[in-house]
């Protein structure tokens, strides 16, 4: 239920600069996702918000109050960790109740709140078990339960799904989104998985080398990436980048086109290519081609189409969908 503002936040570890001046406004009730490659500083940024790391310079405000100097507990935020960080020697009940116990709530209050959280998260039957006796998904839910009992101002998630298998990840993704809807709480979520970012976020913050590359809704980032980095990072399969003569013809140093915006035709077309390999997903086919003019390209075709390696074909780029970038990697709109 709160707004988090970051003003010129910097963090150095020794001489290494991890966060290079981030300004960010995280809206009340929104689902904001920090996404970026490994080592881009997204987890560090989350830990700075949580208060687990000290800022080198800058300020963090929660609901207009400067919390830069406050400890993690006084910021009234809750965090779900990648390893879940459950307390192994405590039962599920005590794990969920631990923050309330630390806040010196009465036994009756703790019991009622733990019960309610367990009901929300389908953990009622597991309250007396230890974390070691639970499956990955259940542990994840206990970690979330420990976060929600405190009724925090905002939830911070640090790659919470990366230890789960693919099927469970999709399910937990839905559960977290439902939780966001039902609680209406501000959530900040860190992931390196751009699919997770695209599906869950209201707003995505793309980070690269400790800088914010772009902030926007998932479709904004998909349709109008501001930099070469964002264009390459968002979207799967990756956007095709073409430089050289064709790019100059469009008045850019590099042009980009997403695999889904490339049409394939028979060998009579303008741009010739040969199929190197095809990935059949059933709903789509990803065709990796080599073109004398454009180099290696990926094409996404709807449906399951015949694509034998070595077959010659032609490519047509949808002119309305071409992204243009200047020599410094900035988009030209």
């Amino acid at each position, binding site marked *: 239920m709160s707004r988090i503002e970051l003003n010129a936040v910097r963090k150095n570890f020794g001489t290494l600069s991890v966060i290079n001046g981030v300004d960010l406004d995280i809206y009340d009730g929104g689902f904001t996702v920090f996404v970026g490659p490994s080592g881009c500083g997204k987890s560090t940024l989350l830990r700075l918000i949580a208060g687990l790391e000290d800022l080198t310079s800058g300020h963090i405000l929660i609901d207009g109050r400067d919390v830069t100097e406050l400890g993690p507990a006084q910021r009234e935020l809750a*965090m779900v960790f990648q*390893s879940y960080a459950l307390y192994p*020697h405590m039962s599920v009940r005590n794990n969920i109740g631990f923050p309330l116990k630390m806040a010196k709530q009465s036994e009756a209050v703790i019991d009622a709140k733990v019960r309610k959280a367990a009901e929300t998260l389908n953990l009622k039957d597991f309250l007396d078990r230890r974390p070691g006796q639970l499956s990955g998904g259940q542990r994840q839910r206990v970690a979330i339960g420990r976060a929600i009992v405190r009724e925090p101002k905002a939830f911070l998630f640090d790659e919470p799904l990366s230890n789960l298998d693919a099927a469970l990840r999709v399910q937990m993704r839905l559960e977290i989104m439902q939780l966001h809807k039902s609680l209406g709480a501000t959530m900040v979520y860190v992931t390196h998985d751009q699919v997770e970012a695209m599906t869950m976020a209201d707003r995505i913050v793309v980070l690269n080398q400790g800088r914010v590359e772009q902030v926007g809704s998932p479709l904004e980032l998909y349709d109008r990436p501001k930099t070469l980095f964002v264009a390459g990072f968002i979207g799967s399969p990756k956007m095709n980048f073409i430089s050289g003569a064709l790019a100059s013809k469009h008045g850019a140093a590099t042009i980009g086109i997403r695999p889904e915006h490339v049409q394939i035709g028979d060998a009579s077309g303008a741009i010739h290519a040969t199929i190197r390999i095809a990935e059949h997903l059933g709903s789509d086919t990803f065709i990796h081609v080599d073109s004398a003019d454009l180099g290696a390209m990926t094409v996404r075709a709807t449906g399951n189409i015949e694509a034998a390696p070595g077959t010659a074909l032609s490519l047509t780029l949808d002119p309305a969908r071409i992204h243009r970038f200047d020599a410094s990697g900035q988009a030209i709109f």
Partner: protein
Amino acid sequence: MATRHSQGLARLAVAPSVIILFLWMIVPLVMTIYFSFLRYNLLNPDIGGWAGFSNYYYFITDDSFPGAVLNTLLLVASVIAVSVIGGLGLALLMDQPFWGRGFVRLLVISPFFIMPTVSALVWKNLLMNPIYGLFAYLQELVGLTPLDWFAKVPLLSVAIIASWQWLPFAALIILTALQSLDEEQKDASAMDGARFFSYFRYIMLPHLARPITVVILIETIFLLNIFAEIYVTSVGGLAGNLTYLVYFQGLLNFDIGEASAGGLIAVVLANLVSIFLVRVIGRNLEI
């Protein structure tokens, strides 16, 4: 080891070592039991034959026996208390990042590598000697009368020496356990509002329950038999434990029969203590 066949092969393969170990244990034990029922005094080799339970009777009714049992238990308890509490404190300190940490750890563990006889000699002659010991010098420096450690507080002196040897062991085991504590749990408890004391009480101590149990059990086994420190510092007459009393009967009184009986009584006492400990804290070893 899944099939019956491979299990049988495994048993056959380990059999030689198991048999040797078994003999290694059982032959001295049976001999001791046999001697404990004999009239077997090296000063009176002519008197032999069965003694019945008289060796046991004389050992238990010896004037020194109650004191020896008490000294044994006091030594075990005090050294364990000092080494566990002190070891916990040292481990917490050594777990902090500071310059030269590796070197400090090496120094801290070194007392454990010194032979008990040597360390007892060092303590006896260099530190606790009432005339030229370091402690005496320090006491004189502030105008006190030097304390004659081994005459006035013999049991405490032995306990101090043994604690000095065992403290590093406890500190090292607890330190390694501390280092295996998940950093994210510390972060999580900080988010949950736990300050250092709560973190220590609810997260760290439960995590350390198992290594502390191991320390207590191992130290008990070794401390029940502590001998070199008592023998070298010549406090056996004042603060001798059961082991010393067995030595006294066997090698000073030359009564092998009674010494054997005493040894078996010490074994029984060690077992009683072990059973008690496993009952009380052995639960910590289960997951």
